[in-house]
Each structure stands twice: as C-alpha cells, then as structure tokens.
C-alpha cells in the first residue's frame, strides 16, 4: 500500500493505519532527532512529538513534496525546538567532544561497530552538519530536499555538506588510521 492510500485511510478515520507509517519511518525520524539532540531520551520524545504533530497536520499535507521530506521537516523542527527548550543538546555536545574516536577504538568489542565509529565522528560535528550529512548520505536526500527540511539556502546546504564531509573524512582518516576501508569491507 502506498503513502497516498495510507493517508486517505487515516484521513477517513482509520487512525490505526498511521501505525504503518510509524513503523516505516520511526528509525529515520529517530536518527534525525538523535543527530540534533544527541541524547536518546530527548530524541525519543522529539520523535514522538514529531509523529503526533505529523498525524495532526496530515490534513494539511498537500503532496507537494515527498511524504518523507515532509515528515523529516517536522522531525527536524521538533528536535530543534526541544533542543532550544532544554539546552541539553549543548551539554551533550560538550560532553561528547571530549570522547575521541580513538577511545572507542581501544575497545575491541566496538572495533567492528561501524555505527559506533561513525556516531562518534558525527558527534564531533555540529548537530546541523551531522544531520545534513545523514540526510544526504544515509537517506540519500537531494540538496533541494535538505533545503526544505532545514530551511537553509541551497548554497548554504551545499557549502555545509562539502565542509562537513571534508571534516568527517579528515576525522575518520586520522582516528581510524586507514582502518575505515577495512570497516567497509567487513560484513554486517
């Protein structure tokens, strides 16, 4: 069943059809919230808020953009709003900046955990940069879609995308000391 059918079902009163959308997008929405807030509890609450806002705003979804872009926009704004309210994002950032990737490498349990390495590196970027990188390289969204989600200008997104990728590359190259290629070759 495609999104249009699901949305029609939800708008006609079948709220349980929304569960399909939650199921499909919960990890993506949670990832966006985690990139911004860097705190699992806050990210969960922001993701929850985003889904409830999306449910309430569904009658206003015109289909002018992809459903995922529309939902990411709500999630991103919800996370930014929560970050401003609680200011825990900056606290978490300050805390994590002092955790170099090398510390994660010292633990052999984490050595093969690509997500962990990448997460450590992304946490050293600003929340905005890590969100943009994730949207582009993980969700494979176009620059135009990221512009819609973040509200930044096209040139701004392009510049930030380029700079943050370079910073991430430099960090991974330095910290992983060439092991990143190995991580890519490993299964799982």
């Amino acid at each position, binding site marked *: 069943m495609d999104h249009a059918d699901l949305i029609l079902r939800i708008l006609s009163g079948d709220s349980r059809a929304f569960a399909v959308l939650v199921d499909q997008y919960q990890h993506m929405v949670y990832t966006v919230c985690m990139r911004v807030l860097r705190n699992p509890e806050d990210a969960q609450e922001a993701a929850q808020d985003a889904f409830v806002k999306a449910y309430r705003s569904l009658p206003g979804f015109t289909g002018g953009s992809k459903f995922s872009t529309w939902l990411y926009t709500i999630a991103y704004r919800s996370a930014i709003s929560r970050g401003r309210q609680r200011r825990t994002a900056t606290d978490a950032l300050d805390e994590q900046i002092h955790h170099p990737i090398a510390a994660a490498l010292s633990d052999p349990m984490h050595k093969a955990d690509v*997500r962990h390495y990448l997460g450590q590196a992304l946490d050293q970027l600003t929340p905005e940069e890590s969100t943009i990188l994730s949207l582009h390289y*993980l969700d494979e969204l176009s620059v135009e879609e990221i512009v819609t989600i973040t509200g930044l200008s096209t040139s701004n997104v392009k510049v930030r995308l380029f700079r943050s990728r370079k910073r991430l590359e430099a960090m*991974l190259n330095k910290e992983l000391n060439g092991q990143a290629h190995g991580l890519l070759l490993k299964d799982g």
Partner: protein
Amino acid sequence: MNETEIRQLFQKAGHEQAPFALHAAVMEQVLAAETAPVVKPLVSSRQWVMVGLVLAATSLLAWFLSTTVAGDTPSGLASTLYVDLSHIGQALQSFKWIAVAMAMAFVLTAMDRFLSQGQHHTSH
C-alpha cells in the same frame, strides 16, 4: 576516504535504532487523540461575526439617534423625507443594558472557546 566511501560507510552504519517504546507511545497518543471528546462551541465563528456586526450597527444607530435634538424638525421638502426616529433612539437607550449583556456574552463565549481549545490540546 572519498565521497563514495563516506556514502558506503553511512549506508553500512544504517539508521539509529528507535527505542522499542517509541512506536507504542506514538500510537497511544494518536489513538487517544482520536477518542478524545472534541468540544465544539455552540455558536460558530461566522455566527459570532454576525452578532458582532449587528451589535456594532445597533450601537452606531443608538449613538447617531442620541445626537438628534428633539423638536429640531426640518421644513420644506426635507420634512416630507424626515422620519422622526427619536422614539427608536429612546427605546435603544433603554436597551443599552442588553447591549452590555451581549458584549459580556461575547467575551465569555470567546473565553470558553479559548479554554476548550486549551483543554483539547492538553488532553493529548
């Protein structure tokens, strides 16, 4: 690392795993929103606009008529067109408390609408 490898790294890492409780928490709120009683005001916004217009027109008319000097009757052609509305003005003067009551009702209903909206939001 080049851009392709960065992309591969992201793809291999995948999304953050949403907590198990997220799905249930979202659906709980969504279903609660569905079953929550929707408080609808008895008088619609359009009706209140009409009431407001009538009230404004009545007030203007009352003010206009109250400025009419009794006994100041026009003569000639004007007298044929003249309608003595002073008795209506006097009647409206006596209804000023009704106008005040209507204004109070308007304010109270507006507050009721505002509070019911607030209650509706907090019920989620």
